[in-house]
């Protein structure tokens, strides 16, 4: 039985896995057909014929995670670190019958490497579903406040 606390706790737990760089455990939070979406436009609705910063299924996310471990991943020598600061996640949809839970979270995100530290503000929308009693990510949508700005490299995950 999924509770509202489970949904909110899931979002905090996910951010902690990312900041502690437990990427394998993080990948396991996704449903098999889960995806990670970072739009390019403010309020973007079209995912197919409008450009996005990231639109990744499990295959692409796995490529990222494997790459981060690689000996010849030059842009990760030295490695980046990240820091998520989350506002209290707010549940928008809590529908056990449809097995659908949507939770919205405002956040500040810092990514750092060498002497450089980049700051981003974003809203994350998690579409969750319960599989074998455990919450899994259908879609994690990350809307950067300045989604249409010119960025340097964003190498880890918001």
């Amino acid at each position, binding site marked *: 039985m999924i509770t509202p606390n489970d949904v909110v706790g899931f979002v905090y737990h996910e951010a902690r896995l990312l900041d502690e760089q437990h990427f394998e455990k993080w990948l396991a939070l996704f449903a098999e057909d889960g995806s990670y979406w970072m739009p390019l436009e403010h309020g973007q609705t079209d995912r197919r014929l409008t450009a996005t910063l990231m639109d990744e299924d499990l*295959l692409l996310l796995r490529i990222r995670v494997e790459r981060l471990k690689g000996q010849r991943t030059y842009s990760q020598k030295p490695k980046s670190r990240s820091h998520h600061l989350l506002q209290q996640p707010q549940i928008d949809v809590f529908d056990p019958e449809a097995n659908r839970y949507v939770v919205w979270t405002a956040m500040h995100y810092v990514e750092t490497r060498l002497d450089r530290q980049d700051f981003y503000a974003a809203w994350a929308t998690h579409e969750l579903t319960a599989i074998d009693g455990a919450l899994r990510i259908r879609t994690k949508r990350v809307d950067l406040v300045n989604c249409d700005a010119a960025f340097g490299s964003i*190498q880890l995950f918001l």
Partner: protein
Amino acid sequence: MTNRYRDNPQAVRALVRDAEVHRDVYIDPGIFTLEMERLFANTWIYVGHDSQVPKTGDFFTTTIGSQPVVMVRHDNGAVHVLYNRCPHKGTRIANELSGNTGRFFRCPYHAWSFRTDGTPAALPLPSGYENTGFEQSETSRGMTPVRHVHNYRGFVFAKMADGGPNFEEYFGESLSSIDNMVDRSPAGRLEVAGGVLRYMHNCNWKMLVENQTDTCHPMVAHMSSAGTAVEIWKQAGEPMPKPMAVEIFAPFMSPYEMFESMGIRTWDNGHGHTGVRHSIHSNYSAVPGYFEQMVAAYGELKAKAILDENRHNTVYFPNLMLKGPIQLLRLFKPLAADRTLVESWTFRLVDAPDLLLERTLMYNRLINAPTSVVGHDDLEVYERAQEGLLTNGNPWVSLHRLYAPGEPAIGVDNGTTERQMRNQFRAWSRFMAEVVQ
């Protein structure tokens, strides 16, 4: 700060040897200033695509070198490029990336207004300007147009100075790459579509342009991304159909021989392209219905000829790259000697299946986005080079690969040659050191 290169054409010329360039071309702020004054003024620079301004009054703001400009559709259908400032106090007139201004631009400061060819329309209290010398001033002529604008099959280029070669002379045969990209539409038309990815690079703009025909780096710099993609797909038992993402990544891991045999072609004035015989774009899956549309539009023979051309990257010197087979354009906008904004634009082939645009967008996202695992390693090596060039151990950068004395400007060569980079620098040297008539 004095610019030791300004009045010294010999010193500028000495930076470019037959097969080496001096580090100052990448790191010296004085050289960057001269690039903006000479190279970006006397050559034809890509401004935008006319599909971005389809209707009267539509505008698009951008830069030519360091110059803010606005590209706008005038009421007679012509596309004009104007310097983006009010002639009065300098206020930027068009302030959004794109929009529609109606029949006039209106300055938000004092309500001076201008037609979309830049000519003055009206200003408040005009009697205050009588007998003031205003009528003889440059200000009275309105927004200054960029003098030379050429729309080639939708691609709008501009040249700011009166000197330098005319459009056809400057681009010559290299326009065949634009032709091929446009011809890939059954309607013979392209539209900018999807949105632009903007990626900030702390390196010199020329490093990016050189990288476009650097065929000895993908299997090294991109092993971590493309190599991993191939590995994961293999571990999964090579499921078919091959995922689009794997189709896009895998060719980056092709062996040196593939890149050697693909060939490089160079043209005069610093233009050139990789992928004379084949390229990393040759083996993408067919898109259902597309070939039939092309045959209906062009006949089978011509349709095949258009689609068999699989040029990889075409460099339009100085700062544009075009990928015909996947309808993608990258513009390397110089901001400072060590700062470049890379814009990656995508196009729809008018009347072709949406799946082509979908693939183009995926390619752009996977390879060119600030979130791209391929882009990350490219930027890493550029930024390391920008910093590495500060060392005094060796002031020269090598362009020796497959150099032979007396190599002509125009020709086809082994695909791993650095000949196109040398070709760019020969043109660079000419536009930087010579007094352009």
